[in-house]
């Protein structure tokens, strides 16, 4: 009994001696405001900016999965000659009705898609309204501080300057993705990315009959970004919400199966102005029936979550 007690005392002391210096060290490395110049040395400044002694020895391979941002998709739609359709946007009034984390996450992505679309098409008041709606959903997800009152004011003050609004939106959603990672909320990040992707394709396919050939090609090309999205969703530890999302996207994948992509080698060449151009790559083929199937399947999954 005494031996057991001694062992316990020893392990308690050992753990405490191990833990305390680690605590002091890591508390000193947090995301803090810049240290006063007088007290910072080169070494200290580096410690505060992303460097510390390695905590593991064995090298590994980190795989990132990424999808185009809602702003990128909205820019693509604009360049493809799409017209702004206010009637296609998700109702702002529905935002308060999403009580679960899953629905809040997906709808945050959907509203981010609408926000980006509004920003790119210079719908200034609508942009601020959608940013405010994203803020409400962020509050529900416990990250309301990312879209602060100051940020809303900044957006309001710059509402007529598209580039400023684009910066605000991209910075905000980058910060959100970072925070979700920090807080171990990768599921939320994945569902938000899915919501944003769904809304982008949904908005792009609302008026297919009057769409340009360029827009139709851009829609068909989303088969590649859907692969990126599915890779992202599969990269997380499976949860019921992620599985549900992947199941819901099943019919969309089936519709995109009608798009054929022939892989060809790509090559980088220098253009006359010195710009490097990557040419070649895949050839994308589709027909009208496939686009209709994509349009219908994306509307079904979008309306399943945005009800």
């Amino acid at each position, binding site marked *: 009994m005494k031996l057991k007690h001694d062992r316990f005392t020893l392990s308690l002391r050992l753990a405490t001696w191990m833990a305390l210096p680690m605590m002091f060290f890591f508390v000193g490395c947090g995301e803090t405001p810049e240290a006063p110049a007088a007290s910072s040395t080169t070494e200290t400044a580096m410690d505060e900016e992303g460097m510390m002694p390695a905590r593991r020895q064995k090298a590994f*391979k980190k795989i990132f999965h990424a999808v185009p941002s809602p702003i990128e998709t909205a820019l693509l739609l604009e360049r493809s000659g799409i017209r702004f359709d206010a009637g296609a946007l998700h109702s702002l009034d529905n935002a308060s009705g999403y009580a679960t984390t899953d629905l809040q996450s997906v709808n945050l992505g959907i509203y981010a898609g609408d926000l980006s679309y509004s920003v790119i098409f210079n719908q200034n008041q609508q942009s601020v309204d959608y940013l405010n709606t994203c803020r409400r959903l962020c509050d529900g997800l416990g990250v309301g501080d990312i879209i602060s009152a100051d940020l809303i004011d900044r957006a309001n003050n710059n509402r007529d300057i598209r580039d400023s609004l684009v910066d605000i939106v991209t910075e905000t959603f980058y910060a959100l993705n970072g925070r979700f990672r920090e807080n171990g909320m990768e599921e939320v990040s994945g569902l938000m990315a899915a919501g944003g992707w769904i809304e982008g394709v949904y908005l792009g396919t609302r008026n297919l009959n009057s769409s340009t050939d360029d827009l139709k090609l851009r829609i068909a090309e989303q088969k590649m970004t859907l692969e990126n999205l599915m890779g992202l969703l599969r990269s997380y530890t499976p949860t019921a919400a992620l599985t549900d999302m992947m199941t819901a996207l099943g019919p969309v994948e089936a519709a995109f199966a009608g798009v054929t992509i022939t892989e060809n080698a790509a090559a980088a060449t220098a253009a006359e102005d010195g710009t490097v151009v990557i040419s070649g790559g895949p050839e994308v083929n589709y027909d009208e029936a496939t686009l209709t199937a994509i349009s219908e399947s994306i509307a079904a999954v979008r309306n399943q979550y945005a009800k």
Partner: protein
Amino acid sequence: MTAIKKFPLAVLALVMTFTVADATAQCRTFTKKRCLPQLEDYVQNDNYNTAVLIPGDEAELELTFFGDRAYRLLVCGHPVLGDLSFQVLDSRGNGIYDSADKESDHFDFRVANTQQMTIRVQVPQTDAVIQHEGCVSIMVGSKG
């Protein structure tokens, strides 16, 4: 007694959880201060492709790049990790760019046709007795 026994484990678990969250927050600060400005007028993709890496590590990102759009691919790492190298591969795995002899941490290019490409990043090995880890961020900006 049982509660007391659990104390050291709880402390360690708390410290480790705190450490991981703290390292991520640290990387977010690093990326914001040191990497983001290098995208200049390119519109940032809002994906968070940042990790804490050590010498010998590799990182890979697969992404779709849209036709007729200009991109800046930036591989931004803490200087303690040395000169990071990166390659861009097409969808068949063929190399189309290698940073090895370029002395630049970014690659500006335009894509003629929409395509998926893979960016592969290597952190160089080191003979140092004490190895350091640092933040590495793969950032993609686009314009035009």
